[in-house]
């Protein structure tokens, strides 16, 4: 059954889900994602922050703005209500100025992720083989070294295991330099669930969970991006 989030987006001829929608979609597939709520006013932002607990992160929400951080649309580690309120107003003003024609829905408020190792997971489609999953370590590993692995959807548990082992940065997950090893099983589960989700949802054209933060106990998607079919 197609998710209501996707049906709604297609109905409004949108091909990019907002971060709040994307996280809801992956969470409904059993993929842990940092709880994120949409604030459409300054008061809303402060109220939500208090509810989920400081420190929080704010990110601009607009279907037209994909690269949020390029336009000052991301602020991390906000400690209290006055900071949150101030950043909310500044962020909205900056976005409206930079993207005068964009439909800006508000700001996503989420709890700051606890420290851990950043990894990336995602899906894109190949013309011959269909949807394929990607796994890699975040930051320089993916950006510069392109240290990533792929598997064709649907994947099995053993494929997920191999994907993780295959990247050169794997020793970091095993706990290099006195760090505790991260919960690799949790990453494997996420990959298998991601495979199930995209396998059952042909409407998804591309997907990024970037970053997923993993520590010795949990793995959680901190940001999610979903592009639907029909976009060019």
């Amino acid at each position: 059954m197609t998710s209501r989030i996707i049906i709604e987006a297609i109905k409004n001829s949108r091909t990019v889900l907002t971060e709040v929608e994307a996280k809801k979609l992956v969470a409904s597939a059993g993929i842990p994602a940092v709880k994120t709520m949409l604030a459409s006013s300054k008061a809303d932002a402060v109220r939500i922050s208090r509810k989920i607990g400081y420190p929080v992160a704010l990110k601009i929400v607009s279907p037209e703005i994909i690269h949020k951080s390029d336009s000052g649309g991301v602020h991390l580690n906000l400690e209290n209500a006055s900071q949150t309120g101030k950043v909310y107003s500044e962020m909205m003003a900056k976005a409206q100025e930079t993207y005068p024609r964009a439909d800006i829905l508000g700001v996503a408020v989420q709890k700051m992720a606890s420290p851990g190792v950043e990894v990336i997971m995602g899906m894109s489609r190949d013309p011959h083989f269909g949807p394929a999953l990607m796994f890699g370590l975040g930051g320089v590993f993916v950006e510069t070294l392109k240290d990533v692995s792929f598997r064709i959807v649907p994947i099995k548990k053993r494929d997920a295991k191999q994907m993780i082992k295959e990247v050169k940065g794997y020793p970091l997950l095993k706990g290099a330099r006195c760090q505790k090893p991260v919960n690799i099983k949790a990453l494997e589960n996420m990959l298998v669930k991601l495979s199930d989700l995209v396998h059952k949802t042909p409407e998804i054209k591309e997907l990024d969970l970037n970053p997923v933060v993993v520590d010795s106990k949990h793995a959680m998607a901190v940001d999610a991006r979903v592009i639907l079919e029909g976009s060019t």
Partner: protein
Amino acid sequence: MNSNDITKIDAFFNPSSLAIFGSLREIMGTAFWAIKNLQDFGFSGNIYPINPAAEKYDGVRGLKVYSDICDISGRIDLALILTPPETVPGIVKKCGEKGVKAIIILSEGFAESGEVGAGYQSQAVEFARNADMRIMGPNTFGVVNPSNGLFTIPPYVDNEKLEDGGIAVCSQTGSIGPHQMPLQDWSFPISKMCDIGNKCDVDETDILNYLANDQETKVIAMHLEDVRDGTRFMEAAQRVTKIKPLVVLKAGRSQAGGKAAASHTGSLMGNDKIYDAAFKQTGIIRVNTWREFWEVPRTLVCQPLPKGNRFAVMTFTGGQGILAVDAASDAGLSIAKFTKETDKKLKHVFHRLGSNPVDIGPAISDSRSQSAANPFETIETVSSIFLNDKSVDCATFTCYMGKHLIGLIPMLVDMFDKLSKNSSKAMNVWIYGTCLQSMEEFGRQLQKRNIPYYFDMDIAVKTHGYAAQYAEYRRSNK
């Protein structure tokens, strides 16, 4: 693949009769030459030459020439077409009327040459589909089957027969065929060969599905430039690798990957990475060089799959041993640690033996030692002791061969044969030495007794690595 499909593809490899369309001029590359080759290779079925000027010929190479395929009274399984592109659609249509099962279009000048050729190609496919026939090619060298003498390569000029055996070779180009490698000299055992050319109809997946069920084929080696339908290919490969090894050489590795995409994942996804993922998921052994394409199947076809990745090696010098250990580690193998019992037995033969790699040199050259009195017996004893150690899964034996040793080849071959027969471990032999002629003779005789040989230690060791990886896939996908 249903039984009707299998029968149709089988007609490419096991036709009881074939018609051949093309020029009967007595020069290389014509239908005449193809007929000559079929006869030289001892094709067991009937051959019917077809030529519009049939009345001009009073038989060709002892065969009656027909002007129309429908004039032949018997059944025709396979048609070989060697005529210019513009004539091909009409001939295919005629074949349909006659009830031919399979057609190989050997001529070129179709989709690979431009729009006009592509038009002839799609017309030919349409006529074939209407008459429930399959087409291989165009732009192909066709098929080779040593067991029945079927050999369709028109410009082939040698007539040495191929060794009938367990390796099927399928390629997307005529440059991976029996004429490209000294297969006879290598005693390279072939079950079937085919070149799928432009893949206008029969593609890599059809061939895989057929070879999966082919009793004669023990190992499939496939050269690919692309895969027509990824999902279908993966399903077929998964079925194949449950029963037999599939070795793939995928060309175009260096093609630039990445593309403009809205996601990070999309921008990092390259064509070759996707092929690589698909191969890993289906247990395909991906080789990266032309050389490996031919060398790796030779161990897989005649040796058991290793039960693990623990490797042992016997060398004539310590230096060779260290190089072999490096090669093993590159190939994903671990160096077997012999049991205490093996260590004791080896030390009993010669005091400096005991660990892996096994350097046999001192044991056979130390004149004060009993073990040097009969070096061959020592090699045999030592080999058998460590090969049968329970902590060893696969082994490479080094053997020197020089001009003056040529007379010893039968004895050495017997020794390795006995060793292999009395063991369930995968083994191969690295031959080195001074005289190419004796090395080749030694290798050929070993391969004939199902013991793979290599002139290059790295390949010998790497082959075990590939086999161990594949065996691991098989175990975890039961």
